């Protein structure tokens, strides 16, 4: 019987068109994704885990095959399995089937496994789609390796089958219990929410194991498994079915069967579709057939005069809309959605704005953005679902027979549905707002700013949702079945929100798109408003066309074929609709032209590919001048006028250029940022000839007389950095903004000479543009490059003087000391002058600042901040003071008399150190909410401040040559400084937590390395995971192993040698030399491992036992297995013989260190023992995280004291 039901069902599916449609959809989605990943479109690069990971590597095949099936596939699973029993109710075949002698078991499981079987066939299409994509000739060969069927098969059985079983079981059970298609789809949303919440909940490092287990789809388990895998491993290994992954799979297989069992036990052969809510009461009348004259008397009916006019129709529209809205509010499912939505928002609020697991204040924009972002997809799904419900309601309830014959124009019916849907979206956004405020209040934050909520949610987000509603109703109007409509909408949304931008490349072609908006407490919605509005009008008029079309083609009557409807739409009485459509289309074209003019003519928004094309041209044409002798800037004097309102900046200035070479220089090469315009260029020597390549932006000025070695000339210029119209995408910084301007010299001050940094650095991209291989950085052996520092190739140290002006209510800031401040002609002027030489790297800021000042000895500490952002000023002052304390004693004296921190809008989230000036994003620290009493919270405002202050030494005192590895003189050393400051401020646990995070980031990032990992001494600028994360850990380890004082002594000497010296600049090798000088012979190996090798350890505490000695002490006997590995640049790791110093620490119950011993351990297992005076609770190998170790979990063991020796 089972087999019979199974076969019947399978055969039925094979005959159904739906199955082939599902297969086609998955195939196409996968095919398209495959093409994208495999680099079919040269301008489109989609990377998953580094460019070196092949498109058909096991890692990517798994991610795509499983990923597409987890989302698009899941919808199909629900459609197939969720409906497999339900269809007997909806098609009313249930009474036929349930009266046959088939057993419940055979019936249910026959159906279930047949549909699961079908689902598994359908889901395989995703794999085939990928295979097909990779087999096309369009894919880029360097993204491909050889075809391995086994990769697909592995993913299929490891992930696709178990997940389909689980999803199927869940939705099968739901269908058995609820017997209502709507509930099934609702449960799908709940399922997505549950996964999303658990993901965000357990994303932190501590919960890694838990999250790996509880992720029903297994993705987290795989991630945990392969987190630190190297490129080589990702390219060649499928996930082994071991450990957490195996446990996860077994766990969820078990749960699948339990869920099936629950569904089974709930089901009985009662032959009605159950509604979860509400039951019917049947009315009966007496049924004796007796003639009784009817009371109907047409003449006695009140006389009424029906009126038909536009006014009445509008009134009817209002009435119908109110009805729709009321019906919605009464809808039980909608109420459930609201409830779940609230639950979701409260749950995710835990993760609000966390950095290093440390919370931020729930400022309104952040809550609004985060909540809306989280909730957006749910609003979209609900919009789609209710679009079908509303449009099909009359037909589903067979009310259309009556309603369609009523004297109501189509547009009234249509608009009432649309209004209902839009109203629903408003309610959902209100929910976001209310939940946001509740969460804020709950977190003790009471500055609610309803204006920001309203502006963001109802000003910026609502329109999109409305346009989506219009589209959804159009689709539902046109299709002949609402499920087809849902499907089309889902596919559309997938396309529009992911692929469209990659392929169509311009917001003009992506429905509902806009340049984006980012709220900043400093700049509000800033200049995002107008372009946003233009885009919204543009899409709005298109939506109006859709609305007109929907209304014209509104399904009415019993024949709803599109051809019939089209014929009816052309009736004379429908003329109004066409007028609307044509007018809207005209506006659409007009708006489109306006957008085009702004984004493509006024602002040439180049695609990445076009931009690279220019860079390639630049290199091809002018590389020959790279070593042409050029003078260097020695002095900069600027006048900068900032117009925040107009978003313009006008600059004029004089650069003193000195010929520091030994040859005469007859021509000067000048580069300027593409967005800036050079209005005037004058040379004190006079000019003979001017060359200007306007395409690439390269200028060559031939001097009237050559500049002799040692001589100087003055180069005066005027440049404009103006904003015209708007760009396709919202750009925050880079040009003046209303409040919070932050621009640096590269954006409007000309630079001298060919600049290697403008070339395309990425070698994959170079290849696409026909350029040869180029090492990312100059090799460390390139002594010619020692003449240039890595920050600015056209200057050594310069004198600096700037007069900045802005609007009266703003403060403008540049490096240097304020000489004079005055107001003339409604402009607020500031004159800054630097009294010591600085690097050619400076910034200008202007905002309505509040200022707070403190003193550290004779140094003025100043913070310029946005009113309301006072939360962490004290921490920043502490950071500055502690940093100055430490650095001025341990490195060298501070060169300035001032440190200024300046807040800038959150469009970028970084802090950056300019001479005595530190711009600091509002997004990373100003609103941090650090709970000092918490064991977990990391005081990152202090950390970031300390890091940036350290740059006043490590960048602004000493800067490396423009070669590989130099960046460690800047970033790694600043990180070291910050860690040293933190060490003084933090408890050891917090410092360890910080280091653990850094180690995790380093290990994760190195597994995504696109080029090749280099040892610390030779890293590229771009390898931030090495320069910050690894560098910090290694320097900290060095301070432990060779002593903080010794290390600092080396740094002092290094600074003394190189600070403010100009060319030739030092390299990382110089630093290492100084460090080696203070390193004892026994630790030289370590210095070498840190800087010259990629060194990893695999340490493990294999066993440990503790015994109490008669003297009241405790002896711990334990074994440590140690292994040292060297990795090569491709990530291949090789164990090497070792005999290294490794620490072992013992902690008591209160997590206090009670014993620390340093051992010199050979590779392999060593038996050791340690004696401590207190009762130990935990023993840890390398407790200070000095060695990079991929698995820290096996480094520790809890201890239980065995019974003491019996005393005699």
């Amino acid at each position: 019987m089972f087999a019979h039901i199974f076969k019947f069902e399978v055969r039925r599916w094979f005959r159904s068109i739906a199955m082939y449609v599902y297969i086609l959809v998955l195939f196409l989605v996968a095919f398209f994704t495959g093409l994208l990943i495999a680099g079919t479109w040269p301008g489109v690069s989609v990377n998953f885990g580094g460019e070196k990971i092949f498109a058909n590597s096991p890692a990517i095949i798994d991610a795509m095959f499983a990923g597409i099936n987890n989302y698009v596939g899941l919808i199909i699973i629900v459609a197939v399995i969720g409906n497999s029993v339900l269809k007997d109710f909806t098609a009313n075949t249930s009474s036929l089937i349930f009266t046959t002698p088939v057993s419940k078991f055979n019936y249910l499981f026959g159906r279930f496994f047949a549909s699961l079987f079908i689902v598994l066939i359908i889901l395989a299409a995703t794999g085939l789609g990928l295979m097909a994509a990779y087999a096309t000739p369009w894919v880029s060969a360097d993204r491909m390796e050889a075809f391995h069927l086994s990769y697909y098969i592995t993913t299929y059985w490891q992930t696709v089958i178990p997940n389909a079983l689980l999803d199927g079981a869940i939705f099968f059970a739901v269908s058995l219990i609820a017997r209502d298609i709507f509930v099934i789809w609702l449960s799908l949303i709940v399922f997505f929410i549950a996964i999303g919440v658990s993901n965000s909940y357990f994303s932190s490092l501590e919960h890694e194991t838990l999250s790996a287990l509880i992720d029903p789809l297994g993705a987290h388990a795989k991630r945990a498994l392969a987190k630190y895998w190297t490129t080589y491993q990702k390219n060649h290994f499928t996930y082994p079915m071991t450990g957490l992954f195996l446990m996860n799979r077994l766990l969820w297989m078990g749960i699948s069967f339990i869920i099936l069992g629950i569904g089974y036990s709930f089901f009985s052969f009662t032959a009605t579709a159950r509604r979860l809510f509400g039951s019917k009461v049947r009315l009966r009348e007496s049924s004796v057939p007796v003639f009784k004259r009817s009371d109907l008397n047409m003449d006695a009916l009140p006389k009424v005069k029906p009126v038909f006019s536009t006014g009445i129709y509008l009134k009817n529209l209002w009435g119908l809309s109110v009805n729709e809205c009321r019906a919605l509010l009464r809808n039980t499912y909608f109420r459930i959605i609201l409830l779940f939505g609230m639950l979701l928002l409260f749950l995710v609020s835990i993760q609000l704005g966390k950095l290093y697991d440390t919370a931020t204040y729930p400022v309104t924009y952040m809550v609004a953005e985060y909540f809306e972002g989280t909730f957006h997809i749910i609003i979209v799904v609900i919009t789609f679902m209710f679009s079908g419900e509303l449009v099909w309601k009359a037909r589903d309830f067979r009310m259309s027979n009556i309603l369609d014959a009523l004297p109501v124009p189509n547009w009234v019916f249509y608009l009432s549905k649309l209004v209902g849907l839009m109203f629903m979206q408003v309610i959902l956004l209100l929910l976001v707002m209310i939940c946001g405020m509740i969460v804020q209040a709950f977190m003790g934050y009471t500055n609610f700013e309803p204006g920001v909520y309203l502006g963001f949610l109802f000003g910026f987000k609502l329109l999109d949702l409305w346009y989506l509603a219009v589209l959804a109703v159009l689709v539902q109007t046109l299709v002949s079945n609402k499920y087809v409509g849902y499907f089309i909408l889902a596919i559309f949304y997938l396309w529009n929100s992911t692929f469209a931008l990659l392929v169509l490349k311009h917001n003009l072609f992506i429905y509902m798109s806009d340049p984006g908006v980012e709220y900043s407490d400093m700049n509000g919605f800033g200049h995002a408003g107008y372009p946003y509005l233009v885009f919204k009008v543009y899409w709005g008029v298109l939506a109006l066309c859709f609305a007109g079309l929907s209304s014209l083609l509104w399904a009415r009557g019993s024949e709803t074929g599109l051809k019939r409807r089209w014929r009816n739409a052309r009736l004379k009485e429908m003329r109004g609709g066409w007028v609307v459509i044509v007018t809207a289309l005209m506006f659409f074209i007009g708006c489109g032209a306006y957008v085009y003019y702004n984004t493509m003519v006024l602002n040439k928004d180049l695609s990445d590919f076009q931009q690279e094309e220019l860079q390639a041209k630049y290199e091809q044409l002018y590389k020959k001048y790279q070593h042409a002798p050029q003078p260097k800037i020695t002095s900069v004097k600027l006048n900068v006028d900032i117009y925040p309102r107009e978003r313009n900046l006008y600059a004029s200035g004089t650069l003193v250029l000195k010929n520091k070479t030994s040859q005469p220089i007859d021509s000067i090469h000048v580069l300027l940022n593409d967005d800036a315009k050079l209005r005037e260029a004058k040379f004190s020597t006079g000019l003979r000839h001017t060359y200007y390549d306007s395409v690439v932006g390269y200028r060559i000025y031939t001097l009237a007389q050559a500049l002799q070695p040692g001589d100087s000339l003055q180069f005066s210029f005027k440049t404009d950095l103006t904003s015209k119209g708007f760009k396709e995408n919202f750009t925050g910084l880079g040009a003046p903004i209303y409040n919070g301007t932050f621009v640096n010299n590269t954006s409007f001050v000309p630079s001298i000479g060919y600049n290697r940094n403008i070339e395309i650095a990425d070698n994959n991209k170079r290849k696409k543009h026909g350029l040869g291989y180029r090492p990312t950085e100059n090799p460390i052996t390139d002594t010619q490059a020692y003449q240039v520092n890595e920050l600015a190739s056209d200057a050594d140290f310069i004198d600096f003087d700037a007069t900045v002006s802005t609007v009266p209510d703003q403060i403008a800031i540049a490096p240097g000391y304020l000489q004079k401040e005055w107001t003339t002609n409604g402009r607020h002027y500031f004159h800054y002058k630097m009294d010591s030489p600085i690097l050619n790297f400076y910034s200008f800021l202007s905002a309505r600042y509040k200022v707070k000042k403190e003193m550290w000895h004779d140094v003025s500490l100043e913070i310029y901040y946005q009113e309301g952002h006072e939360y962490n000023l004290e921490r920043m002052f502490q950071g500055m003071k502690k940093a100055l304390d430490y650095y001025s004693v341990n490195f060298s004296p501070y060169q300035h008399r001032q440190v200024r921190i300046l807040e800038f809008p959150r469009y970028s989230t970084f802090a950056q150190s300019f001479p005595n000036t530190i711009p600091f994003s509002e997004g990373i620290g100003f609103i941090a909410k650090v709970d000092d009493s918490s064991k977990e919270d990391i005081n990152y405002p202090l950390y970031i401040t300390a890091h940036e202050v350290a740059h006043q030494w490590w960048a602004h005192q000493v800067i490396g040559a423009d070669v590989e590895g130099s960046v460690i003189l800047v970033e790694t050393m600043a990180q070291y400084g910050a860690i040293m400051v933190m060490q003084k401020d933090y408890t050891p646990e917090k410092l360890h937590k910080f280091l653990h995070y850094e180690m995790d980031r380093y290990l994760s990032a190195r597994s995504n390395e696109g080029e090749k990992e280099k040892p610390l001494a030779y890293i590229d600028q771009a390898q931030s995971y090495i320069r910050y994360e690894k560098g910090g850990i290694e320097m900290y380890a060095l301070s432990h192993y060779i002593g903080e004082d010794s290390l600092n002594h080396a740094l002092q000497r290094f600074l003394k040698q190189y600070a403010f010296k100009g060319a030739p600049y030092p390299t990382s090798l110089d630093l290492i030399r100084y460090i080696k000088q203070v390193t004892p012979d026994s630790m030289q190996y370590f210095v070498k491992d840190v800087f010259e090798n990629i060194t990893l350890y695999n340490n493990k505490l294999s066993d440990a036992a503790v015994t109490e000695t008669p003297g009241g002490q405790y002896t711990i006997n334990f074994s440590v297995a140690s292994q040292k590995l060297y990795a090569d640049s491709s990530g291949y790791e090789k164990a090497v013989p070792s005999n290294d110093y490794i620490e072992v620490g013992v902690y008591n119950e209160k997590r206090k260190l009670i014993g620390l011993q340093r051992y010199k351990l050979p590779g392999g297992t060593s038996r050791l023992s340690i004696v401590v005076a207190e009762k130990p609770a935990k023993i840890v190998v390398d407790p200070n995280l000095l060695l990079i170790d991929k698995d820290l979990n096996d480094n520790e063991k809890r201890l239980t004291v065995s019974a003491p020796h019996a005393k005699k």
Partner: protein
Amino acid sequence: MLQVKNLSKTYPNGVQALKDVSLNIGNGMFGLLGPNGAGKSTLMRTIATLQDADSGSITFDGIDVMKQKHELRKVLGYLPQEFGVYPKVTAEEMLHYIARLKGIDNARERKELVNALLKQVNLINHKNKFLGGYSGGMKQRFGIAQALIGNPKLIIVDEPTAGLDPAERLRFNNLLSEIGENIVVILSTHIVDDVSELCNDMAIIASGQVVQCGNPEALVADMRDRIWSKRIKKDEVAAYQQQYNVILSKLSAGDVVIHVLSDQDPGSGFAAERVSLEDIYFSNIA
């Protein structure tokens, strides 16, 4: 009043539902009689603007129905063959809703009208009950109430008694019989009694064609003395069908009574039968 001219309609699946149908329908109750699938509902829905014909025209009071749908809807009262109701909506609410859509904007007028209608169709006691719980007869009475809203000049009642029990049907037909003489009422049905009870004019439609048309009594009079009946055994039916023009055979206490159409007495035990509309109907569709 209502003129249907040369109406033809073929569905996409090839079924020809209407073949060159022409009808002139005046005020009063017009019965459209025909078996299931004859094209009655197609014709009714076409008149009610819910679908289009392939060719031909319908005019009502100067309104070209197929081109001026909205105009027709203003004067139409339509009770479809089957209709559903929204859950959790009461009869009163629904009537208000429809009255409003039918252009009765004045709230007081609307309230009076709805109340009067509810009273007259005998639903006043159930007006606050959800429509979903109504019995078949109640639902049809609600249906006629909604069709009567807004002084319709054309009322279309499509198979209203199908599925009603005898008591409900009787009550419903009582109701129909009171609908005025001054408007056009079209009643489609496959139950001969409905027409004989209610209509003063009728057409019989079979396989999409009008096969008879006229006053029911006149049609009966035309057939006088031409119907003969006989009680026979079940196994004799086939033989009789070969020999005579059998238009009707029905069971009667285990035997079969056959009616044959014949201008002369067929003899052999046949007796003259009083002509009923049923005979007309079956003689036309047989």
